[in-house]
């Protein structure tokens, strides 16, 4: 019998080797991505464990920040995340809807889009200075939760707008046409069909900004977060402590802090972000399942 006409040729063998090398490299690099995350988490848990306790979560810092807990900082972070997202989520979503569903492709729209992209690229310390200038001084809100939250809101706004636009653009045109052909106005179309089908994507964008708002230190440092406060904030006009700020303080500003405290603080910060995200994800699942609207 002759050699099979379909036997592997030298050239094909080489191609196949290159293929398997390429695949291995890509898969390896992807697998490596798990490393930093597990390393960070592991480090935080191991180093922070000695300081972790119920008291750490539920008490205020004592002895010049070298002992006690982080409770006021947890409360402050929740305030900041809550108030800033209460501002940036509705504003960002509404702007995203307008830009994707209504805005015509003219120079004004292009300018707005350009502004949003650039806003997303502004370093957080510049947001901080803007916050001090506009909210704290010019609008006279003082250093307060409100000023800090508004600063964070401006910082998170562009990403929320961008992810809203993306989620809306992913809704098939056919759904909109189906509504139009029944004589639905644009708003009816958006309300009945476009939003229910994009709400999870939109909320994903918002969820991602929770960790951003909780984690940034610079924007809140001069606008509303304090090193130490002997009382909990009572309203948005008060200052507050914050986990990110507290982490910065105990790791660089205060001498003789036991090593475990900064690590434990970082772990709490991470947990708070995860917890808030979990609530948001549960809410998203609820919306998706019920499609109440």
């Amino acid at each position, binding site marked *: 019998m002759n050699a099979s006409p379909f036997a592997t040729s030298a050239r094909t063998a080489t191609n196949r080797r290159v293929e398997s090398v390429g695949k291995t490299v890509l898969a390896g690099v992807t697998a490596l991505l798990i490393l930093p995350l597990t390393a960070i988490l592991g480090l935080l848990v191991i180093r922070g464990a000695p300081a972790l306790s119920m008291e750490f979560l539920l008490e205020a810092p004592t002895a010049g920040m070298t002992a006690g807990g982080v409770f006021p900082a947890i409360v402050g972070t929740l305030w900041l995340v809550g108030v800033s997202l209460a501002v940036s989520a509705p504003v960002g979503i509404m702007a995203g809807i307008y830009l994707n569903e209504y805005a015509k*492709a003219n120079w004004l729209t292009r300018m707005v889009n350009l502004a949003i992209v650039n806003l997303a690229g502004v370093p957080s310390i510049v947001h901080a200075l803007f916050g001090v200038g506009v909210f704290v001084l010019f609008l006279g809100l003082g250093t307060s939760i409100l000023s800090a939250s508004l600063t964070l809101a401006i910082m998170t706004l562009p990403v929320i707008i961008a992810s809203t636009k993306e989620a809306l653009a992913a809704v098939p045109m056919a*759904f909109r*046409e189906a509504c139009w052909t*029944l004589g*639905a106005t644009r708003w009816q179309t958006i309300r009945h069909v476009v939003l229910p089908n994009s709400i999870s994507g939109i909320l994903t964008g918002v969820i991602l900004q929770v960790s951003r708002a909780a984690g940034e230190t610079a924007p809140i440092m001069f606008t509303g977060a304090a090193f130490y406060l002997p009382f909990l904030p009572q309203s948005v006009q008060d200052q507050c402590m914050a986990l990110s700020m507290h982490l910065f303080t105990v790791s660089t500003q205060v001498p003789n802090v036991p090593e475990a405290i900064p690590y434990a603080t970082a772990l709490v910060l991470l947990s708070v972000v995860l917890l808030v995200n979990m609530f948001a994800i549960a809410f998203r699942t609820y919306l998706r399942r019920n499609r109440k609207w």
Partner: protein
Amino acid sequence: MDEYCIKTRGLKLFYGEFEALKGLDIRFLSGKTSALIGPSGCGKTTLLRCFNRINERYEGVRTEGEVVVQEHDIYSADTDLVELRKKVGMVFQRPNPLPLSVRDNILYGLRLHFSRKYRDASTLDEALETSLRAVHLWDDLKDSLSTEATTLSLEKQQKLCIARLLPLKPEVILMDEPCSALDPDATAKIEELLRDLAGDYSLVIVTHNMAQARRVSDECAFMLLGEVVEMRRTEDLFVSPRDQRTANYIEGRFG
């Protein structure tokens, strides 16, 4: 009823600089089925989409000339798009039921346009049954009205898309290749439905499939490069085309 459900006068449409429709004068008989045939890019779908002004939702589209429906130019300033679309419904290539239940799909139009006092339960149920019966879906779906419409077979989805227009009592139903996503069995069923609907409604159907045009339509227009080459009774057009280009196309020499 007017003799013609749609009349155009000097209808031109531009996509940016490109002239997709080159001054069309075309008329469609009321209560009949009219087909638009022609090779890809001839403008048949574009023309169809002029009749409910759905083209305008996209950037860079400009229209000139008149389209007269019910003795009124629908491109005049006093035409409300919402009112127009109630009278001129559309069915698309791919069935596009809304991601709602069968019932909510059918009643969506009524819910959009009528305030609550006109929508007591019995009116809605009646509209639901009448519409589903008209498209031969009632017997299949009467016990599963709360099924998600997107889980139905494509044939049923397309029938549903036709049915949901009916509660608004349209004058004209525009169909843009309504069977191109369907298999031959489903196509046959939709065609049967089209024959039942003709008479009650004026149908204008765009199709790639010449045999289909022949099977379902009363009159037929052959379009080429943004112009109507010939429009006549379907039988006449296919048996004795007047224009050489029509003859070449229906014999399959190009397109």
